[in-house]
């Protein structure tokens, strides 16, 4: 069995179809691992028996870890926040429904930064998650639980959400693959909202093929989400191992000083690998990308301040306060929200308030336009953009919690893509001092097939042995 648990999701599906293991056995084995989790990656593990998958189910019963941000009917879905403690939704998120319909039952709900606000999974209402590569270090965030679970072999694959980098950055810090699709490619219905115009759902997996396989069964317009779109072509499982004719752009703004030396080394090696595989490398400028953090930390908190107004102790979740109505609102929210959430609600409320809207929100929306234009111009010259995913490897727990601004600033490589609505993937490029370094590829809207193909070729060439010491 333990060799079976080493397999990627796609290979495990093959094994099930070949009769080497039954879906029930596979589920039971993963459940045992998930229950024994010492990384605090899981907030809830499924207790019942999963339904038998259809014989032709593409995902063949291979279990899926689901970030706690997704509503799953009857299952605790709390966005890792105390303000939703005990909440069990009366419905299931579309992305989860599609994947379970394709044959992947829910293994458990993974820990995360509360309401997806964070880059280290230290903002959870239920304790931080630890990085399987070094338990004194963070796994990244906000999808830290999903990333740690996959990296530690507690789940074959997982889904998370990405608003400013929350899939890609933890994938990078945990040495796995993480993909943020084109905005609108995957339905947001049932994803507890953080920043509506930026949030996207995506896979966190052991390899690029698994990411493609999950993505294939998540994309497509959903009548419940007016911002969702049909994917113009089917998602392909990549096969090419060369990059001939593919042009890569490297933006100096995202690959310069801030990148720590060990990360830079791995990145430079990846650039060299691209060239060895026949890919072209050139410099492209993204002149407004340095302002991405500022724009993001206005827009996302602004939308969040509105999205989180519904947590008021009236219809669901715990209620605090026993005085008048105002005291119920105030107590419930003061006790239920963590500091980072409160910080962003305040920032967001300020940015939207009368007299300040134009200076903050209005300007941030215009910066967003410029960032999108920068990418559009770059993609006239190159097919894909290549950067490190994160300027550093996983940092220590507690290292940055005293300085939120420093935490925000480390998102500068991942934040521009959601602002432009374009897709991006992180795949492991190597190790620096024993810790994983992620390489990011970004492309124009709906270029996922090209991104996956390039990532696959790189992945094969790099040959990253992506398993930390996997005793959970």
């Amino acid at each position: 069995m333990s060799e079976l648990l080493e397999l990627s999701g796609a290979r495990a599906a093959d094994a099930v179809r070949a009769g080497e293991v039954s879906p029930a056995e596979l589920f039971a084995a993963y459940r045992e691992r998930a229950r024994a989790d010492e990384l605090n990656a899981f907030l809830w593990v499924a207790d019942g028996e999963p339904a038998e998958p259809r014989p032709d189910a593409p995902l063949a019963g291979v279990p899926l870890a689901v970030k706690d941000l997704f509503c799953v009917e009857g299952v605790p879905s709390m966005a890792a926040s105390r303000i939703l403690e005990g909440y069990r939704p009366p419905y299931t998120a579309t992305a989860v429904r599609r994947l379970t319909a394709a044959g992947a039952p829910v293994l458990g709900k993974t820990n995360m930064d509360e309401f997806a606000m964070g880059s280290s999974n230290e903002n959870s209402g239920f304790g931080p998650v630890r990085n399987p590569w070094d338990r004194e270090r963070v796994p990244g965030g906000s999808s830290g639980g999903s990333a740690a679970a996959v990296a530690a072999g507690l789940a074959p694959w997982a889904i998370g959400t990405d608003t400013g980098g929350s899939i890609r950055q933890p994938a990078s810090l945990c040495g796995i693959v993480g993909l943020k699709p084109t905005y609108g490619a995957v339905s947001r219905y049932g994803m507890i909202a953080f920043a509506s115009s930026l949030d996207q759902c995506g896979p966190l997996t052991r390899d690029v093929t698994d990411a493609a396989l999950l993505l294939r069964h998540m994309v497509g317009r959903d009548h419940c989400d007016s911002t969702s779109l049909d994917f113009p072509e089917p998602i392909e499982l990549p096969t090419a191992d060369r990059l001939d004719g593919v042009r890569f752009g490297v933006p100096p703004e995202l690959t310069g000083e801030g990148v720590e030396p060990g990360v830079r080394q791995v990145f430079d090696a990846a650039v060299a690998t691209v060239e060895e595989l026949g890919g072209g490398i050139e410099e492209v400028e993204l002149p407004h990308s340095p302002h991405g953090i500022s724009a993001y930390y206005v827009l996302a908190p602004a939308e969040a301040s509105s999205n989180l107004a519904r947590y008021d102790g009236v219809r669901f979740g715990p209620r605090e306060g026993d005085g008048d109505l105002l005291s119920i609102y105030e107590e419930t929210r003061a006790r239920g929200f963590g500091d980072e959430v409160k910080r962003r609600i305040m920032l967001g409320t300020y940015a939207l308030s009368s007299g300040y809207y134009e200076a903050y929100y209005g300007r941030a929306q215009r910066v967003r336009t410029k960032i999108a234009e920068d990418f559009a111009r770059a993609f006239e010259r190159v097919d894909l953009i290549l950067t490190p995913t994160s300027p550093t490897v996983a940092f220590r727990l507690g290292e940055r919690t005293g300085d939120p601004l420093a935490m925000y600033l480390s998102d500068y490589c991942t934040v521009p893509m959601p602002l432009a609505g374009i897709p991006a993937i992180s795949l492991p490029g190597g190790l620096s001092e024993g810790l994983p370094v992620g390489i990011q590829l970004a492309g124009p809207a709906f270029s996922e097939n090209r991104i996956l193909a390039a990532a696959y070729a790189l992945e094969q060439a790099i040959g990253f042995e992506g398993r930390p010491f996997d005793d959970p």
Partner: protein
Amino acid sequence: MSSELSSILDHIEKIEELDLQDVPPTSHVVQVENVLREDDSRPSLPRERALEQAPDVADGGFRVPSPGT
């Protein structure tokens, strides 16, 4: 909390340096219009389900202190 907010705001205010005149704001990266739903009814939740997560239920509804008291 407030000193952290101040330093964050200081950083954010850098966007004031940019010349953004004549740049249209992006409120939606998705360029579609008229996504409309047919006016066909779907089943509502049974009342017990609608109320089952609520902290305080009375008279078939969600009880709260009266506003303005």
